[in-house]
């Protein structure tokens, strides 16, 4: 008996969606087992997790809050991944975006909000774009592996943040004190620069608008513009791209500028819309979760919207699970399992397994 593996020519469209769906279901099942192992009834856990996040008004608003940075970063990542640029650096790009916006806000505390808020988003975009640009240049010109370089940039950004919030930008009372293992933060941003929220909730709608606009924008760019065409060709077949006269350097740079910039703006949203100050550890790994969001969404805008909503709800629910004695780390587990199953299912959709006697 032999196992023969052959490459499929073309997996049917529905197959790819079905396979992702299966991945989620199986991951949920595995998590149910974990709950059960902790002596918690899976149905109770899931009810708490999902119902609250999606059916209660407050829960759903929180889900949206969590969704915003995931969606914005996820869109940017989907563009990068489409060009086969493995941008693992959304986290760092998000952080520097937040840093830039905070720096701007704290430097000009008296300027009008109508001027400042758009500017904050702009510098956030530029900072994130710069953070993504560097690995892009290294990749295009020197073939430096972008997985590692973007990852390193994440850690550099993280240290930069730590330095700023524990040092020069630290809250006035803390400067001079001895370090302690808590979190550091800057002063509160001037109140008029706090992003407006939808009444009663924490949904900072300007960022949400930007996210939705980016969704539409990304869709248009990829499907309707020459740049989008070039991105797809570059990602599919680099040789054919050369053949067609497409310049890889240009595409790589633009893609990473957009990807980094969008993540940067997500960071601005978190700082100006939720925390209202820069503090260490404010990003709950959004940049990394966004990778899964983008992947689960198959780099398709609508699916990414759904997937970011799903993960928003899950992350939100994860916090609730804490009350049941389950640590927040369970969310990480869930993410890992989802990724695994997507991976395995990608394999099954690309290859056919036959058992021959």
């Amino acid at each position: 008996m032999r196992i023969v593996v052959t490459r499929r020519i073309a997996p049917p469209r529905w197959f790819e969606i079905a396979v992702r769906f299966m991945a989620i279901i199986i991951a949920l099942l595995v998590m149910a087992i974990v709950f059960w192992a902790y002596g918690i009834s899976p149905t109770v856990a899931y009810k708490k997790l999902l119902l609250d996040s999606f059916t209660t008004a407050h829960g759903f608003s929180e889900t949206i809050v969590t969704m915003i940075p995931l969606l914005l970063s996820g869109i940017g990542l989907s563009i990068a991944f489409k060009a086969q640029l493995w941008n693992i650096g959304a986290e760092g790009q998000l952080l520097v975006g937040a840093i830039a916006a905070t720096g701007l806000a704290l430097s000009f505390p008296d300027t009008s909000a109508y001027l400042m808020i758009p500017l904050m988003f702009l510098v956030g975009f530029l900072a994130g774009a710069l953070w993504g640009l560097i690995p892009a240049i290294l990749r295009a010109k020197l073939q430096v592996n972008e997985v590692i370089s973007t990852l390193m940039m994440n850690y550099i950004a993280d240290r930069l943040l730590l330095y700023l919030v524990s040092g020069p930008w630290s809250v006035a009372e803390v400067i001079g004190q001895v370090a302690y293992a808590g979190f550091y933060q800057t002063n509160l941003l001037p109140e008029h620069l706090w992003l407006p929220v939808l009444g009663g909730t924490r949904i900072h709608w300007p960022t949400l608008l930007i996210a939705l606009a980016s969704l539409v924008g990304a869709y248009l760019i990829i499907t309707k513009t020459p740049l989008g065409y070039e991105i797809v060709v570059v990602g599919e077949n680099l040789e054919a791209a050369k053949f067609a006269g497409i310049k890889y350097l240009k595409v790589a740079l633009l893609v990473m500028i957009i990807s980094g910039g969008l993540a940067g703006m997500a960071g601005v949203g978190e700082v100006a819309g939720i925390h209202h100050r820069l503090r260490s550890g404010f990003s709950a790994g959004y940049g990394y979760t966004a990778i899964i969001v983008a992947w689960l969404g198959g780099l398709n805008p609508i699916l990414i919207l759904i997937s970011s909503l799903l993960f928003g709800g899950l992350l939100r629910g994860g916090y609730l699970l804490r009350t049941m004695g389950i640590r927040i780390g369970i969310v990480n587990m869930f993410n890992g399992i989802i990724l695994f199953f997507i991976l395995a299912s990608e394999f099954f959709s690309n290859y056919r397994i036959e058992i021959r006697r």
Partner: protein
Amino acid sequence: MSEAHGKTALREEREIEPIVEMRGIVKTFPGVVANDHINFEVRAGEIHALLGENGAGKTTLMNILYGIYQPNEGEIYIRGKRVEIRSPRDAMHLGIGMVHQHFMLIEKHTVVENIALGFATKFLFPTKEISRKIREFSEKYGLTVDPNAYIWQLSAGEQQRVEIIKALYRGADILILDEPTSVLTPKEIDELFSILKRMKEEGKAIIFITHKLDEVFAISDRVTVLRRGKVIGKLKTAETNKKELARLMVGREVLFRLEREAVKKGKTVLEVIDLYALNDKGLPALKGVSFTIAEGEILGLAGVAGNGQKELVEVLTGLRKAEKGKVLIRGVDVTNASPRRIAELGVAHIPEERLKHGLVPNMSVAENLILKQYYKQPYCDKFFIDRKKVLENANKLIEEFNIMTPSPITPAKLLSGGNIQRLILARELAGSPDVIIAAHPTYGLDVGATEYIRKILLRERKRGSAILLVSEDLEEIMALSDRIAVMFEGEIMGILPAEKASLEDIGLMMAGAKRMGVVA
């Protein structure tokens, strides 16, 4: 005394019995019979040349002997015993070694590390023992190479010696060399030949795959000629001559000629002047290539693959740098211009590797059709691509070029080979190009698709396009070309009008045995 005499008699008998015998070998791949009932034998202590063009079946046959392929029919006998060779490991155990055209060496490692990779070496410090043995081989056969050099530091000739040593180290008595001189300088070729001669004297059997007649006469004792998968001739080298071999190699059948009308040649469109270029390894691939093509003319470029044709096409289409020389299109200097600029000047390129260069597999047929024009009017207007126009164009081209596809938005990778080529043709020819560079346009296609593509090329010729047709199919070249150029080792051996071209001359030029210059 009588014992010695008996031994001599025995030795004579053994000399006649072949060390390798392949009987009735048949090997088919989908759509083609690569080896058609081939009988082939080699004796110990001889250098046996296996001669033929590309596609004749030489490499396939040797890959069978080396265990890379399994024959559909036929038997193999080594030293008189019937054997099954299921993998290179089996072949090595039988004493068969092969030096491929593309070396399988690890660039970052040293010579000894590469040789140590196989089996039968010690665990600790394997390199010491190997260094010793390398010195042995050096003295015995002249295979000098620095054991501690890194592969990337070595010249092609030295790397080849490492491959030979690899085979010898495993006790090879039968050595197969696949087109070994294609990467060597003349001096290195001499060195290789003297090595081979010494190995022959030691009683090894050497099979030498080649398409170059000079080499056959330089070192072989016997030569077997293959054509289209069959053995056409088996001769003692001393008893034949170049003309005879050339004739055997390319054949003398009456060729099918398409209706090629006389078309009035126009002005010169493409001028290539003294072009020099390097290949991927940094060695000269083009050495002073010059030719012109006029409106309404097809220049067929004949020659065995690997003699610079690929590099020539790449230079002409902007994908490779020219070190020296010029390329002019209607007088405009496009040497080392970007692919886009060259394309915009009206140059179409039908690439040799369709899937790699010509197609974006997951994109739709319609999207592939605008690969060269997506950024221009009428498909792109300011910021957006006009989907409607793209589809209109696709539908038009699908009909015109008879591309069989379920719809214009079907992913291109689902198309059959022939239809992929039609797609590429449609895309390239849609803009009525001034120059068409067609590299092996019918390679791997069925009869119907082949005929169609040839018809299209003739149609373009009639329209006034200047066409460079690169092909290994001599029949195709003879049928379609107005003039024929033959390339060998980076040089044009001759350019002559089709009427004046005899198969014999072309065969000789392809094998490097004759130069004719430009014949009017």
